[in-house]
């Protein structure tokens, strides 16, 4: 019997993530938890992006915008003296859903390169909008006095944040798994494969794509709430186009349209950045070629490299990796 290397890797990663705080506490290196929280938070945002990029085939170059909306929600609520956790989460979900619905409804009228450009344009508009918000620190950003509190849970506590990010990430991956294999997911994946035929069969693609876009925006906003708790700081830089680019790289690096690809991509990208930054100041010079090699030689991303062969014979039965 063949051992599925992907499954092995995924189980290993999940087990390591679950146990990492134990190692960090034993080694008295709380920084590990912060570093890996960041990885999982960005992995969560990448998982949100993957829903429309990987499964829907739509290249959104502006998803950092929704992460920023989540983070600014925490900052703004605290700034105006609203304490407690539930408002953070509900407002972040509501705001990202509203903005996503509006922007998605406009962007999804285009496709291909135009979709990339228009999502980028909206993210840039959001960037300058946040820069212009003097009361929230404008260009410099703003410190957040306290994190999100859900009953006894203080999300700005290192350990609590770590496991919140871990559980939320697992939850979103599970949700994505159900979603992409349900009828809804078949429509999204079918539209990626052949949009003209979808219409000829009688399926109105737009409304399903818009729904997927809004769900993916809400997942990114949740990641933004966690990010604000990690840094206790908000800044327009959160919606800078390089951040959106980073999310794209994570999804592509890990494997487009795979369930765990975004997490693997986030781990590899942030680890590589960290590693190279320790070796040289010019780490970006080395990161670029590595990414190019992955794109050239691992079309299905890193998870694709480990996938069983004879892809061409194998239908996309159920998404399981």
């Amino acid at each position, binding site marked *: 019997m063949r051992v599925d290397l992907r499954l092995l890797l995924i189980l290993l990663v999940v087990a390591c993530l679950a146990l990492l705080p134990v190692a960090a506490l034993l080694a008295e290196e709380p920084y590990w938890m912060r570093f890996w929280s960041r990885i999982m938070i960005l992995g969560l945002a990448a998982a949100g992006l993957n829903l429309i990029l990987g499964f829907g085939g739509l290249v959104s170059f502006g998803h950092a915008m929704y992460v920023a909306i989540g983070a600014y929600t925490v900052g703004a609520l605290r700034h105006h003296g609203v304490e407690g956790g539930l408002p953070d989460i509900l407002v972040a979900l509501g705001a990202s859903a509203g903005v996503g619905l509006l922007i998605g409804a406009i962007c999804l009228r285009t496709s291909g390169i135009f979709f990339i450009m228009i999502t980028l344009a909206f993210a840039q508009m959001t960037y300058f909008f946040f820069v212009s918000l003097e009361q929230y620190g404008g260009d410099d950003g703003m410190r957040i006095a306290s994190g999100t509190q859900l009953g006894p849970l203080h999300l700005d506590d290192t350990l609590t944040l770590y496991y919140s990010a871990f559980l939320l990430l697992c939850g979103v991956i599970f949700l994505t798994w159900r979603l992409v294999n349900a009828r809804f997911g078949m429509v999204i994946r079918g539209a990626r494969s052949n949009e003209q035929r979808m219409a000829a069969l*009688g399926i109105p693609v737009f409304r399903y794509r818009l729904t997927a876009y809004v769900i993916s925006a809400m997942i990114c906003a949740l990641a933004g709430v966690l990010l604000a708790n990690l840094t206790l700081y908000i800044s327009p830089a959160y919606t800078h186009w390089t951040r959106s680019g980073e999310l794209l790289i994570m999804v592509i690096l890990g494997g487009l349209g795979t369930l765990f690809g975004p997490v693997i991509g986030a781990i590899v990208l942030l680890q590589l950045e960290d590693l190279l930054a320790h070796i040289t100041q010019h780490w970006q010079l080395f990161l670029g070629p590595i990414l190019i090699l992955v794109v050239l030689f691992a079309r299905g991303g890193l998870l694709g490299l480990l996938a069983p062969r004879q892809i061409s014979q194998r239908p996309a039965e159920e998404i399981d990796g």
Partner: protein
Amino acid sequence: MAEPLLSTRNLAKSFGGLTATDDLSLDVLPREVHAVIGPNGAGKTTLISQLSGELQPDAGSIFFDGQDITALPAWRRPHLGLTRSFQITSIFRDMSALQNVALAVQAHAGHSFRFWRPAAQDPELLEPAREALRQVGLQHRADVAAAALAHGEQRQLEIAMALATRPKLLLLDEPMAGMGPEESAKMVELLQKLKGTLAFLLVEHDMDAVFAVADRITVLVYGRAIATGRPEEIRGNENVRQAYLGEESLAV
């Protein structure tokens, strides 16, 4: 004569200076196989694209089942019972044959805002999908990726997907395109089997096939219908001989 299922009235479409459809009025009766033939560039595919809603006509109207559908969006038309197939195979290449057809079934099984139950285990989708594959003789290839099917099988899948939408009228755009004689014969057999259960508007270059299955034939030249009638009438029509059949002499 029965009430026509599909009619076009004075339909016109041009691209720049090129007239693709010229004052075309055409009727398809219920359960009729109506073939549209004509030389290359006669506007046959353009006609199908207007009937299916992918192209908007410049002038004229299209009626289906008593309703004016001229301005109806493409995705609504299959819900009335008007479905097209494609000349260049248009399938979901990365899905299995069964999934392809199941998606066609899903299009007509209510909305798809269903987020939880796996579609791949849904008997409500799979049973009709298997049935459509059986109709075209592809049931033994159900689990093969569509991209890995032979050309002729992909053409059969194309038809199965269209059939799965339960059309009253199927617009078939060159179903035999690129097929060898053996595959063509199978397709003619399939059409003859389906004949009488629904109506077809059949665009096809294979004259043997057309004269074997068509109840009526319309001959298009430069977007204009120069004749409509039963196969033997078309064969005997002087205009048709001059405009079309003469140059490609029909061996029937």
